[in-house]
């Protein structure tokens, strides 16, 4: 087995010289900080995950996690780094909290603090140790070791009982326990980290109570780690800092600053007096697990989304801000003034009246063309000539309460306008038509469209509904050009005002409350926030070279803020994936030997598209993500509409919480010259529809009748699994079967042509949550098989009897995974894995009786409960192998054979997995003969070859 690639929580980060050492799962990644290049990737702690990386000078690395530890030797030479594992992994009986190599390199004794509040002085060569137990017996979540040598060591341990204990490690003493020297009391929750900084005599702790606390040691003599001195000193609580809105995992000292990281995805920077300097939302809502700082003051963070981000620790107040001019005019605008700048001077070159009404808005369409909006929704396209203007065309905006244009753009012969009530209208300029040929009513909600932009031959509109909306042009050079809506993306701001491209990156500009936001779309990160008072003002923002200029009016004054772009962000060292658990991954089949496409959905309500490139070093490449689900995505079904050498088209049905079904159309162009990379440009995704069983839920939950509150008593159904087939009667029609948590099997019919979905059947199966559909399986461990009869006017689902019964009991409780294969004309093999640790194999036969009603006969079965010790969540049937994965983080391989109507299987091998909360496994491709590439997913994913 080879573990090829992995993405899960990043728990460890260490900066040494120009290199960043990252621990993901059991693997260490070494990246060159300057070149941002992956230098080394090695598995060091398999199957345990790396929780921390500690360096001993620049020669050794101590890598540990859970109950294991290993030592690596590192050597730097000019532009080159080498890593070597010195010894085997050392495994202990208890959880490791902290490790230090305190003595000289020639004295290889490790000091190891364990979760039961005891310390080993562990001799690396002989593996002998001396154990010191603190007198206070309790469990630790955190702790730190401090000292100059292993003979003179202090322990700061953070307990589950909300205390920090300070005690000494004994050395060959006769005493049974070490006394507690100090007990720091104040936290109201479990202590998640403790740190002692001898330079400023501060102890910094973080806790479940969401605080960071600083404790001051008042003594002048603490450099001498003498027992008596530590006993006599006084430690007092100096400050308590609240800034996080969830648990605070860790804090580190960065010179005179403290940086704390938490479950709320934020980094807070504090002064040593406890004053908050600033906060960064760093990992898209995923918890931040680890933080370190490099010699050149760059902060690195690793999070639950599998990414590593870097933040320059400079500009705390870098913004240049100055007032440009004051305007004090109360006149309503009724004229257009044109000013032109020639040789650094502005000239007034004309004043024209279009109509005797107030001008509502003016939008530039071109270098010499503008769109003018006057009363009654009248629109004029005006071109500037040398000494006059020319009206090119006239149009009318459909009626609305606030009837004016807020944005516009022209592409070929199409004029696209967005208005104040959030609608988008398309006018055909070729035929000089007054009225729109296409309209998207209130596509941006009720607060209006902010901008229309053409980028890479596509249209993008932004609005005050927090979204970017993507469209493509159809038949653009033909007679009836139109636009087609593709999908939307939610932004971390209330008003999305503008999208600009600057040096390979896309930036979204907008406002959130009183701040102007610059967001890097490619890196999914807020680059800057400027307090300007909010979006209700005139402003502009341009980026050139390395500078961003933002001009705005506030309180009748014009301000300009200049920001240097490259000091504000660095690209992430590792890219982010799902921020929460992945519930499902499906493979999208394309005719390409270079890559495979993965579609994944998870608890973070986001659909991701990524590709696997089997021949590169980091094999999984993230391509794009899509929002639109209101709740978690639990299941995906792919229906391929078209597939050939150049292009493939697929329908993706995704379902999940809140009884929401979404349908996406993904088009992939595979004929592009560069075969090794698939980028966003090769893939387009269209959000076809969203179908909610109970309709949109505005005010659905609370209904007031007079003074009485009536609760909506409808079920909150979750969609657990989806299965799709072509309707054999009608090729345009797709039948969609959904397993629902309210015990119903719901059938839908989708028409490709009209893009409409309709509920055609609700089969109340049982009062048990159905987990899988294809055949149906529920939390009661029963298997049901259904016969679907669909002709033009009849749709019927009939239960098929299994050996004379309605269902077949396979498991004691939930059936969480299955795979099915056809063996021959009438015989099938079904493998199921359940909550009850049972792995089941079943051979059944379909029997056609004389009256054509089917029935099922079970031929043979086989099962084992001795392989997995927890729920089995994924199964794959291969030609003669069966692969199963479970929540015990194990992958098991069995060999099966079917002879003389008897099925039997034999255990071959098992593999420990690094990712937790395993939800399933998929077969990626038959890459080489005799090996298979698998992707196991759960909290992250792991790609392995078996």
């Amino acid at each position, binding site marked *: 087995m080879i573990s090829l690639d992995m993405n899960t*929580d990043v728990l460890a980060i260490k900066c040494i010289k120009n290199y960043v050492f990252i621990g993901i799962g059991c693997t260490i990644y070494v990246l060159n900080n300057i070149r941002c290049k992956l230098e080394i990737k090695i598995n060091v702690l398999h199957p345990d995950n790396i929780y921390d990386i500690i360096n001993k000078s620049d020669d050794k690395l101590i890598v540990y996690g859970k109950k294991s530890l290993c030592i690596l030797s590192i050597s730097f030479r000019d532009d080159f780094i080498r890593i070597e594992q010195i010894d085997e992994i050392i495994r202990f*009986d*208890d*959880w490791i909290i902290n490790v230090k190599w305190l003595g000289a390199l020639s004295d290889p004794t490790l000091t190891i603090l364990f*979760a*039961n509040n*005891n310390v080993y002085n562990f001799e690396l060569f002989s593996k002998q140790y001396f154990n010191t137990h603190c007198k206070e*017996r*309790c*469990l630790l*979540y955190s702790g730190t070791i401090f000292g100059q040598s292993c003979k003179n060591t202090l322990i700061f341990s953070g307990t*589950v009982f909300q205390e920090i204990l300070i005690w000494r490690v004994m050395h060959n003493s006769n005493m049974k326990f070490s006394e507690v020297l100090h007990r720091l009391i*104040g936290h109201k*929750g*479990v202590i998640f980290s403790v740190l002692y900084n001898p330079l400023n005599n501060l102890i910094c702790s973080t806790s*479940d*109570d*969401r605080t960071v606390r600083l404790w001051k040691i008042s003594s002048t003599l603490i450099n001498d780690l003498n027992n008596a001195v530590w006993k006599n000193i006084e430690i*007092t609580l*100096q*400050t*308590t*800092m*609240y800034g996080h809105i969830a648990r605070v995992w860790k804090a580190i000292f960065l010179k005179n600053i403290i940086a704390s990281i938490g479950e*709320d995805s934020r980094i807070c920077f504090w002064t040593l007096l*406890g*004053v*908050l300097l600033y906060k960064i939302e760093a990992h898209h809502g995923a918890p931040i697990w680890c933080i370190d700082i490099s010699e050149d003051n760059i902060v690195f963070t690793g999070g639950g989304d599998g990414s590593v981000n870097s933040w320059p620790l400079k500009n705390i107040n870098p913004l240049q801000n100055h007032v440009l001019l004051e305007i004090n005019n109360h006149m309503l605008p009724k004229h257009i003034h044109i000013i032109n700048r020639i040789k650094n001077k502005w000239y007034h070159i004309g004043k024209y009246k279009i109509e005797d009404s107030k001008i509502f808005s003016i939008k530039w369409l071109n270098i010499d063309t503008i769109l003018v909006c006057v009363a009654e929704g009248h629109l004029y396209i005006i071109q500037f000539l040398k000494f006059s203007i020319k009206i090119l065309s006239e149009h009318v905006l459909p009626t609305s309460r606030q009837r004016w244009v807020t944005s516009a753009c022209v592409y070929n012969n199409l004029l696209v306008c967005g208005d104040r009530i959030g609608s988008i209208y398309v006018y055909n300029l070729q035929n000089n038509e007054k009225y729109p040929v296409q309209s998207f009513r209130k596509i941006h909600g009720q607060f209006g469209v902010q901008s229309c932009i053409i980028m890479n031959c596509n249209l993008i509109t932004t609005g005050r509904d927090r979204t970017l909306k993507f469209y493509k042009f159809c038949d653009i050079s033909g007679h009836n050009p139109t636009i087609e809506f593709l999908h939307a993306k939610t932004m971390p701001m209330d008003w999305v005002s503008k999208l600009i491209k600057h040096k390979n990156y896309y930036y979204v500009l907008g406002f959130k409350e009183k701040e102007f936001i610059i967001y890097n779309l490619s890196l999914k990160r807020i680059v800057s926030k400027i307090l300007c008072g909010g979006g209700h003002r005139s402003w502009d923002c341009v980026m050139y070279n390395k500078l961003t200029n933002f001009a705005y009016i506030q309180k009748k004054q014009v301000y300009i803020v200049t920001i240097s772009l490259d000091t504000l962000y660095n690209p992430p060292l590792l890219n982010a994936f799902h921020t929460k658990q992945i519930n499902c991954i499906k493979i999208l089949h394309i005719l390409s030997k270079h890559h495979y496409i993965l579609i994944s959905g998870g608890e973070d309500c986001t659909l991701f598209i990524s590709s696997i490139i089997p021949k590169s070093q980091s094999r999984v490449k993230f391509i794009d993500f899509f929002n639109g689900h209101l709740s978690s995505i639990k299941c995906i079904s792919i229906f391929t509409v078209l597939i050939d050498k150049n292009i493939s088209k697929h329908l993706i049905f995704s379902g999940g919480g809140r009884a929401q079904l979404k349908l996406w159309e993904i088009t992939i162009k595979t004929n592009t010259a560069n075969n090794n990379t698939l980028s966003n440009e090769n893939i387009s995704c269209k959000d076809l529809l969203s179908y909610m069983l109970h309709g949109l839920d505005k005010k659905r*939950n*609370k209904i007031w009748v007079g003074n009485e509150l009536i*609760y909506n*008593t*409808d*079920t*909150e159904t979750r969609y657990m699994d989806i299965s799709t087939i072509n309707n054999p009667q009608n090729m345009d029609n797709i039948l969609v079967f959904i397993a629902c*948590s*309210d015990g119903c099997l719901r059938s839908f019919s989708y028409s490709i042509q009209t893009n409409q979905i309709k509920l055609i059947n609700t089969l109340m199966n049982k009062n*048990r*949550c159905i*987990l899988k559909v294809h055949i149906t399986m529920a*939390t*009661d*461990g029963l298997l049901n098989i259904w016969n679907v009869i669909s002709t033009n006017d009849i749709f019927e689902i009939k239960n098929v009897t299994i050996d004379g019964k309605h269902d077949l009991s396979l498991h*004691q*409780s*939930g059936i*969480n995974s299955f795979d099915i294969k056809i063996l021959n004309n009438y015989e099938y093999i079904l493998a199921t894995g359940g*909550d*009850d640790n*049972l792995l089941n194999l079943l051979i059944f036969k379909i029997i056609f009786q004389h009256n054509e009603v089917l029935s099922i006969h079970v031929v043979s079965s086989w099962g084992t*409960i*001795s392989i997995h*010790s*927890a*729920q089995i969540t994924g199964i794959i049937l291969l030609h003669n192998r069966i692969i199963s994965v479970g*929540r*015990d*983080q194990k992958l098991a391989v069995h060999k099966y054979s079917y002879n003389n109507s008897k099925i039997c299987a034999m255990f071959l091998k098992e593999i420990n997995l690094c990712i*937790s*909360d395993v939800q399933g496994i998929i077969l990626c491709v038959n890459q080489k003969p005799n090996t298979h590439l698998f992707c196991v997913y759960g909290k992250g994913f792991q790609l392995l070859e078996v």
Partner: protein
Amino acid sequence: MGKTSKDKRDIYYRKAKEEGWRARSAFKLLQIDDKFNILHGVTKAVDLCAAPGSWSQVLTRRLNENYEKLKEAKSDCTLIAPKIIAVDLQAMAPIEGVIQIQGDITNINTAEQIIAYFDNEQADLVVCDGAPDVTGLHDMDIYIQSQLLLSALRITLRILKPKGTFVAKIFRAKDVTLLYSQLKIFFTSVICAKPLSSRNSSFEAFVVCRDFNLPEDFNPDSLDTSISEFSKLKGVNGYIAPFVICGDLSQPDSDTSYPLDFEGQKFEYCKPTQSPINPAYEEAISLLSVINLGKDSASCTLQGSSMTIDDFKSQYKTKKRS
């Protein structure tokens, strides 16, 4: 989240409030008892990590029912009324018929206190539904849960009668077989039970350990030096406890969504029987009414060891007024 969202998500959450249980976990013990009859003949029971007290509620209701039934059937005056002791570090709202000990289960005094309450006799049954606040790092959560279970086992070795029963929460995940093996050293029968009221999607299950039997050469004091000494007990290698589901099809299933008007009854909103007591985040939450900590610029700093959240709030308000 709407007021009824949780009611819709989970039928047992709803039923617990309707039937007056302090937590939905009450149903788990009820279903385990229905299957294994663990409460039969029990007169002395201990509930470890008892807060908020739903299992103690179940113990009092069921044990007293059993006692009343027996009394009617036999009219025997030698019958002993059941005694229940609940132990937790946290204070807990009182439950009638339950003696509360606010103490640490890892402390030897707690064991002595329990035995004293039972008139120097050992318990017939020890249960433990304790779980850590999960961090989201599964490895860590599983480890802490296993340590909690071992702490419960350690005190159980002192307070449980030979042949007695021990029921505890376990996380069915990586390395669970080690725990099974360790339990198997002390109990003839170790079964992994999953009540229907425990979600299919959850790691949680319960070990039902019966027929307690301390090995002859085993001295419980030897475990006192450290809890970690337990880690050295290996027992049967890689033992997988038999899995048994508790509850039948007549009972609802925690994964299924049911309409609020379930089984023909009109839905009425019930308040939770017991709100959380002293959660770690209480002070941080109380700040939210004054400043929104979610904002980028928002923070609160308390100087020194004497300044309190209330001091900050009043200072903040006066500053705002002026």
